[in-house]
């Protein structure tokens, strides 16, 4: 049933859903070891011992850097070589990898692919106007499920046999599917779109043990009544407003875990269940360099895509921490994300502007900025956009805004500007609002 879906909202791309889920089964021991490693590391109070263990993982990274055509060239050009990386302190002498560089060299950064890697290429959300193609091997694709085991343990959530996981989303297009999920205790994964009329009924029927959603999905969830409570709700909102948390807690009494992940890196940190604003780093799988004012990621887990000092474009400072929640390790604070921004609907409700980032994924844009000028008026600034791209992009934005709460199509003015006009000193700020929230 798609009666609730506006005809012009069908903007989702064709999704390639992997059905050979039986191939997950051999990787269950690996998932257990990843979760076990994270768990053990989060209980390690001795920083010297923790650093020594992290440094023992650098050998794998060195081998991957040597096998990567991009890194071999990049390091040689700088008079460096992978063997220079012996300790975590050595990282500061090595070059950073910016998002734009990864976008340009996406096929040279990975190590040579073999058939056994079962690698795929996915695209990041394009939230900076420049989608990145990301090569992932099979374990990269399954890593989130391994980390979920760890988070379930942290949240003291107990799963039933054959747990059902729901991916509840509010993306335009209303994509839905169901697949088996052997990697998580022989469970199943159901993607449910809140845009569909029967979303609530499907959710009640599925009775999810775990529920992933975006902020718009959580808002929808908080407006429903008599829903089955999952053991854990997860979101990757980066910034999750307190009122959303409170409204959700009233409706669905389940722990809410907010995590930080990017398509390029996978999950990086999770927001402390005991206190918002503190994101505990998922070491030993990743290393986020302490003492800086931006997020700098080095992947320590083996992967077809070695990431050395990768800059996802997010602000934040990492420090060693012994948290009241019992976590020992490094914690990311003052995490800014990529310029948090909220738009205000005609009814006065605020929505996360980044819910629109998806719309920009399918347009080759050098730079853009969407500004809410009035409640029903937006301005889209584009730099270097092809004329043929503009009309379909505007149609998609208006359709996406309708899904977010603009029942009447808002006015959208387009202005062509130079890339310099949109340049920011640090991270991109593609969304802006000049409307005061009600």
């Amino acid at each position, binding site marked *: 049933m798609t009666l609730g879906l506006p005809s012009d909202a069908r903007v989702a791309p064709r999704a390639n859903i992997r059905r050979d889920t039986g191939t997950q089964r051999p990787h269950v021991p690996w998932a257990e070891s990843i979760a076990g490693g994270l768990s053990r590391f989060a209980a390690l109070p001795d920083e010297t011992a923790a650093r020594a263990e992290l440094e023992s993982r650098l050998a794998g990274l060195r081998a991957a850097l*040597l*096998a990567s*055509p991009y890194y*071999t060239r990049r*390091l*040689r050009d*700088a*008079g*460096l*070589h*992978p*063997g*220079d990386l*012996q300790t975590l302190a*050595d990282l500061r*002498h090595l070059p950073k990898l910016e998002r734009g560089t990864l976008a340009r060299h996406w096929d040279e950064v990975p190590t*040579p692919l073999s058939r056994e890697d079962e690698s795929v290429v996915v695209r990041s959300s394009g939230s900076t106007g420049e989608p990145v193609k990301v090569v992932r091997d099979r374990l990269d694709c399954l890593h989130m499920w391994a980390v979920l085991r760890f988070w379930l343990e942290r949240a003291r959530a107990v799963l039933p046999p054959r747990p059902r996981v729901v991916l509840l989303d509010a993306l335009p297009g209303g994509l839905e599917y169901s697949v088996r999920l052997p990697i998580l205790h022989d469970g199943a994964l159901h993607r449910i779109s809140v845009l569909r009329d029967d979303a609530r009924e499907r959710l009640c029927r599925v009775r999810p043990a775990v529920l992933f959603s975006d902020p718009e999905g959580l808002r929808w969830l908080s407006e429903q009544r008599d829903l089955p409570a999952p053991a854990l709700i997860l979101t990757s909102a980066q910034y999750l407003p307190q009122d959303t948390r409170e409204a959700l807690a009233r409706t669905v009494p389940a722990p809410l875990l907010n995590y930080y992940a990017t398509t390029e890196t996978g999950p990086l940190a999770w927001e402390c269940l005991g206190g918002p604003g503190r994101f505990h780093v998922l070491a030993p799988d990743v290393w986020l360099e302490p003492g800086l004012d931006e997020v700098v990621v080095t992947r320590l887990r083996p992967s077809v895509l070695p990431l050395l000092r990768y800059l996802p474009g997010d602000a934040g400072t990492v420090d060693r921490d012994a948290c009241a929640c019992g976590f020992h390790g490094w914690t990311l604070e003052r995490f800014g994300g990529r310029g948090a921004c909220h738009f205000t609907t005609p009814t006065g409700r605020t929505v996360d502007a980044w819910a629109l980032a998806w719309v920009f994924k399918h347009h080759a844009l050098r730079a853009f900025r969407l500004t809410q000028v009035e409640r029903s008026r937006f301005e889209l600034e584009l730099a270097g956009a092809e004329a043929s791209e503009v009309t379909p992009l505007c149609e998609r934005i208006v359709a996406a805004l309708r899904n977010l709460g603009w029942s009447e199509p808002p006015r959208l003015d387009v202005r062509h500007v130079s890339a310099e006009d949109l340049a920011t000193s640090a991270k991109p700020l593609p969304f802006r609002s000049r409307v005061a929230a009600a």
Partner: protein
Amino acid sequence: MAFDVKNIQKQLTDVPLVSPYPHDLAVAIICDTFRLAGVRPPSRGDWEDLERRAKTPALWREQVVMLAYVLTSSTLGAETAAMLRKNTDSATVMKGFFVQVEPLTAEMIRSNAFRQEEFLRKWVHAVDGQVKDESTRETAARLKQLDYREALQEMQRAEAARRKEADKRAKDLADAAQRAADARGWRE
């Protein structure tokens, strides 16, 4: 007496190279270091021989300048003079040193912490010195880790292996395409 490489690197950070020394001045500085130790410095003929042996004479001149810079801008020069044995053959020391640092450019030594450390350690090795707080084995292991000559060869080997694999895949694909084309011919 052992060389404190970390401290020497710190001293060099505090005294950055503003402009390179003229080549003759750099040669004079190096010769003075030997003289201070009571060792006969390399002769003019030795220097000409060193330049002749260099794979890239321009690069060799850069290394001479950088050696003079690290000797004068840190305690390395004084420490070298203090520990050199009287019977040291300076020409042999210099010959061995320049072979070891062969691929290092002035820019690498100036701005790259790893290559600077390698340059300093190879000097310490050339004058038969020891590194502070390290066993001989640890010093040798660190020198091996830092060895850019070996690293370049390793990176070239990796590059060649990648190219070979890419060529093999391209050939396999071409063969497969040819087989497919041949098979289609039979069916048609």
